[in-house]
């Protein structure tokens, strides 16, 4: 739909703002790690749910960790590069 990365950010003409995607990435990464831990633990303590053998928590945890981690890294604020001083430290575009 919109092909460049900048369209995935909140565009700020007069000040730089962390994009909403960064916050989403952080939260989902945290959730992924918690659920992944639970999923691994479930090999020894299976939950009393239907289809427990499919290890939904494990797969869900892996997915959220990868998805959240990807968003967090991709949209994390970058430090100013040397030689580019004066430019704002905005989100990665």
């Amino acid at each position: 739909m919109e092909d460049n990365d900048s369209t995935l950010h909140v565009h700020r003409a007069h000040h730089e703002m962390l994009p909403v995607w960064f916050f989403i990435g952080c939260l989902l990464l945290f959730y992924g790690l918690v659920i992944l831990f639970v999923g691994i633990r479930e090999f020894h303590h299976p939950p009393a749910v239907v289809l427990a053998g499919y290890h939904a928590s494990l797969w869900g945890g892996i997915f959220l960790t990868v998805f959240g981690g990807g968003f967090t890294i991709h949209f994390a604020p970058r430090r100013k590069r040397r030689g580019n001083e004066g430019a704002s430290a905005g989100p990665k575009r």
Partner: protein
Amino acid sequence: MILANMVAAVEWQSTGRLITLSVPDLIIIVAYFAMVLGIGFYLKRYATTSDDFFMAGRDMTAWVAGLSFLSANLGALELMGWAAAAYQYGILATHFYWIAAFPSMVFLGLVMMPFYYASNTHSVPGYLQLRYGEATRALSGVSFAVMTVLMSGINMYAMALVMQLVLGWNFHFSIWVSSLTVAIYVTLGGLYSAIFNEVLQFFLIWFGALSIPILGMIEAGGWNGLVAKIHERVQGDYVHLWAPMSTFNGNPMGVHWTGIVFGLGGVIAFGYWTTDFLVVQRAMAAKDLRSARLAPIIASYFKMLVPAIVILPGLLGIAVLPFKLVPANTVGMGLHSYNEVLPLMLARYCGPGLLGLGVTALIAGFMSGMAGNVSAFATVWTYDIYQPHIYKHGSDRHYLLVGRWCTILGVIASIGTAYLVTHFRSIMDYMQALVSFFIAPLGATVIIGMLWKRATPKGGFWGLLAGTLSSVGMYAVVTIHPEALRYVALSAQAKPIADDLYRALWSCLICIFVTVGVSLFTEPKPIAELKNLVLGHLAATDEEVVPLYKRPIFWAVGVAVLFATLQIVFW
């Protein structure tokens, strides 16, 4: 109606709970609250002008505005209610996600958004002021402000009720924790906070609910297995969209296809998606016209997919739950109501962690619903009531301060509404109906104003008033004399849901009739005053020239193809 059923279920199961949370679940819920508060404190530094606070600086990209546009409508009450409707009515409930969304959302993006955007107004009542004058804005603004704050209170009440039913949480604890959190983050960041949290909620709802259709389809044996199981368990056609709608009594919903196409897809959907400021505000916050036009079109794609996490769990509930759900007013010992189908399916498949994510998704849905209502209330109150009628010449800083105080007052009024509803529960049914009174005529008034330059200020005002009063009148008559439904819905076999659809249709037609009639006998506005407000008088926009695949029309055609394909597949 959904809430009333919830009340009945809670009253029966006041000491029980559907789900028991573990430590990982609580960690996930606490992390959500910490994140939304953190976002509010972070965004405070950016909400420094009234334009920042009320319109998010008109800085949102198409994706952010689009997902927020959709999320403003994707509340927890809708999720639970439509999952319940799918259990009760089958796949017919999908009409409320497909035909009730795609045409009107695309129409908003392609036709109406240029007027909203080019007129540089802050709100839908603001557009009405420019097009029809102060009286129409006042009528629309006051009713919208009152409705939004009351709906926020009903959302708060619903959340506390659901948390009590599902988790066994204390009613007052839920109300105060959620309202304080919403008050803090919206007061700090304004529409920025509301939009950020709506986009966050979008992801939480998808990831929180996605395990149900995935595991459910595995258990049911795919689509064919699901259909076979449904046929084993219930009589009637629960798996076709249009085939059973040629008569009122040929489908579980008791609605004729004309009601769905003209009442739902034509009037209610157009009224809601194109003029309800709660959702339109998100698109108006886009950074340029192309993004504003793309926002509802992007949202329409995801709206098409929502039945996967709402309707499918309801259908799966029919197929795999080992017990039958019943209407809430017949819930007895050991029985569950339709409204519990989503939490029951969540508990069926999700262990610790995933369960917490699902519950967090519901909490997020409720809270962003409150935040959306409160932020829209603050905008309309400040721009459309306070500024023109109470204090005209304040500084920008003054209106920013008023907006922040409005947010706090809006939350306090919402809390008051929530407690009022606990004592007078019939209020919430009336309130939900009251909101529906304004949608259909408002949609007609705005669309006529945009498409017909001859529509006059008096025509717009009296058309809106006549449409609203006729809707109230029909509702009152059917409430007092239920047998009158046969006249409103044109059939003795019509069921209550048909009442809403046909009432909307008639009130829209009355609004159009009165608007046109009065306009033909009254003085129109001079053409010079209609610039950027009416078709044919839209100034050349500064939309950048972009390749075809970046244009709104390209993506509108794409969603039309998707819509047509889905109708054929599930015909």
